[in-house]
């Protein structure tokens, strides 16, 4: 195949991997990276490398399953492990994704406040816009918006370069792991893994690849899409940490939210960095708020065998529409409660995601090694080591995280 043909092939299958990876950097992700950079400077950068390796391996597995079986992950879990497994998995996903949506709405509210717009106006406006976009617009239109919005993330790269970090130190901290035995440090490193590898994105990626109907022969191109997506995700994470590490950390500014980072950047780096951070956060939040509730409603209905579709009425697809509507409405309301403990909710959602992830990964790894399903496309041994390694690491870290959250003494 000529180089040109190969490039065209890549363009035709491109999309699912890159979009998934970008939406992965939603409000909770950006928050975690900002907080990590402000609190520990560059010293958490090294965690991005093992995280990227795990992310690539896991996303590649899920993408391969989508291509080979032509089905979503929730379908496969239901068909191979029955109602119980599927039901509890979906229940967990529903709760965790409700938390994710709250986090995204909170990110949206906070970034609007920075831009001088009241959250009591902008949250309802955002929720209504999402609703109209999804129920009245076509997926093609939404996909175009998503691909364009992915470009906005590069604002973080610009702000990272504008921060003029000490590249020598950045490089050293990225390549040489230096673990600090501090509970906050460990909680944040768990946060970085947890917000980068999330349960819902496994479902989202596999379904969008299955839906796109990518053929086995074109799988290599699809894999490239996934790998590029993973790298983009982590490059963005890298620059968020670098920006906050270069500007906030040396000045001893501690933050709890991504929006605080934007505010804190104003006196240090000027209006541009401030605006970039606020706009990027708004973008990341609204993207997450579009996709996460929709994806949740789809996978749950798919697994349980309920009718689904955004252009259906409440009567035609009651479960689908209620899950979707309630997730958006309730999360908007939660964010608008005056004095709501949003940071607590975000931590809670991170814990739930962390608890859910090992199960998702166990199912994914078992399914991909099922010869009956995957034929010659089962996992090579090295993949299984990394995948099981990630399962164990995430499980251990999550338990630690839960313990550290409940007993914050250490």
């Amino acid at each position, binding site marked *: 195949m000529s180089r040109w043909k190969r490039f065209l092939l890549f363009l035709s299958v491109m999309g699912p991997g890159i979009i998934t990876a970008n939406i992965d950097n939603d409000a909770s992700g950006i928050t975690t990276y900002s907080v990590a950079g402000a609190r520990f400077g560059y010293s958490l950068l090294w965690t991005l490398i093992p995280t990227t390796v795990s992310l690539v391996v896991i996303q590649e597995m899920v993408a391969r399953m989508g291509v080979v079986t*032509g089905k979503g992950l929730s*379908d496969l879990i239901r068909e191979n492990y029955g109602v*119980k497994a599927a039901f509890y998995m979906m229940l967990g996903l529903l709760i965790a994704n409700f938390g994710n949506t709250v986090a995204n709405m909170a990110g949206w509210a906070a970034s609007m406040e920075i831009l001088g717009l009241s959250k009591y106006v902008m949250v309802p406006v955002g929720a209504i816009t999402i609703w109209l976009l999804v129920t009245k617009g076509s997926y093609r239109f939404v996909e175009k918006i998503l691909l364009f919005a992915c470009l906005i993330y590069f604002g973080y790269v610009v702000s990272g370069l504008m921060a003029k970090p000490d590249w020598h130190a950045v490089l050293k901290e990225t390549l040489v792991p230096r673990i600090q035995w501090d509970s906050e440090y460990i909680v944040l490193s768990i946060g970085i893994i947890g917000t980068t590898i999330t349960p819902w994105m496994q479902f989202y990626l596999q379904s*969008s690849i299955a*839906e796109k109907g990518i*053929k086995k022969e074109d799988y290599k191109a699809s894999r490239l899409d996934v790998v590029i997506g993973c790298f983009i995700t982590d490059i963005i994470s890298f620059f968020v940490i670098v920006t906050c590490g270069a500007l906030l950390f040396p000045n001893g500014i501690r933050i709890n939210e991504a929006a605080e980072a934007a505010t804190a950047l104003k006196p240090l780096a000027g209006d541009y960095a401030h605006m970039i951070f606020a706009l990027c956060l708004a973008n990341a939040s609204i993207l997450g708020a579009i996709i996460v509730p929709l*994806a949740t409603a789809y996978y749950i209905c798919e697994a349980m065998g309920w009718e689904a579709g955004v252009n259906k009425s409440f009567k035609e697809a009651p479960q689908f529409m209620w899950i979707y509507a309630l997730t958006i409405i309730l999360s908007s309301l939660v964010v608008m409660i005056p004095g709501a403990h949003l940071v607590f909710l975000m931590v809670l959602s991170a814990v739930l995601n962390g608890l859910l992830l090992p199960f998702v990964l166990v199912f994914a790894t078992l399914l991909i090694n099922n010869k009956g399903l995957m034929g010659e496309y089962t996992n090579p041994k090295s993949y299984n080591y990394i995948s099981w390694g990630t399962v164990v690491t995430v499980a251990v870290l999550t338990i630690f995280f839960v313990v550290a959250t409940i007993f914050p003494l250490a």
Partner: protein
Amino acid sequence: MPLFGDLFLSEITKKPVFDPKGEIIGRMRDAIVVKGDPLPKVSGIVVERKKALLHIKWENINIFNKRILSAYCTADTADAYEMNDKDLLAVRDILDRQIVDANGVKVVRVNDIKIEGYEGDAVLVAVDVGMRGILRRLGIEHGSEEFLRLFKTSMPYNLISWNYIQHLKPKLKTITLTVPRQMVSDLHPADIADLISQMSREEGAHLFTDLDIETAADALSELQPEMQAQLINAMEPEKAADIIEEMSPDEAADVLSDLPTAKAKEILEHIEKEEAEDIQELLGHEEDTAGGLMTNEFIAYPPETTVAEAMERFKKDAVEIESAYYIYVTDGAEKLLGLVSLRELLLSDPSSKLSVIMETKAKTIHPDVDEMVAAEIISKYNLIALPVVDNEGVLLGIVSIDDIIDRLLPPSAKRNRRRL
């Protein structure tokens, strides 16, 4: 008669199976289903004893109800069972799979299977696709019922009778779908096309190969080009040829032009000579020109034909033709002299000749002209079909308004459908 009344499959799976002495043989793992008349029946059960699997034939089963499972044989006398792809297993192959519910074209799942005693057999009578099935599998059906009773409501059963369900290929493990096929062929071909494009490739291909040729041809023309090529490419050339033959020549040419050349040739060889020539002729035109869009199925009579004769002949000739709204009038060399609309034909005196009543200043188009120009002409002069003629004025084919609309506004199944 081992089974009286009815039960749900989930109520007996994992239940202990006893031998005549009251010892536990093992736990019920699955039920082997075979074709019965009229409904499928259980031919035996698979019992799990520690790690080993045992096969207990239906004749050896003593009691089979939701409280007790017992057999005449013991663990030692039962045959060993090995999982294989030849048997259709209720839990492994049917439970949790997707069904296309023809009643509104929605995809539901098999939440449970209802089994009833009938003339000594355990017969699969229905699948449970409702909430009750899910709750039963979760073990909270009873609790939920009690809970709902507090609010003076109840849960409806949502069962689909097995009469409406047929397996596509029971022996294949990869098939995850049971489609109500009789109902599927009652569906409009456009809806079937819709279903096929929603399924996984494998399932879509199986559903497609099971359709009768006429339905398959109609459904195929509603699908997007890549999907068409994929389905036809995977078929035996003879079967593919039968389907292509059923399509109108212009649609057939569209499908063939998307196939690898060798495959297209192979299929053409299996098509009736006359039809194949028509298709080949169309394949010679560029896809986005009037020639690429036209069909060479039309009705043309000589000018001296009378209205009465034309009407008689039309009744015979139009049966085979997709769209016939005009009668074209051509001379011996097939040159287009004029046309007569059906309305004109019906309103004219039966004895008058076509040459008298025909419209001679008919708009025509050259086959190499861009399809958009054809669309503009059809729109401007409010035509139903536009004749395509070559430099000599020989009538080659017609571009109908249907073809134009399909090109301007792809049918629903052709739109790239994606759910998030």
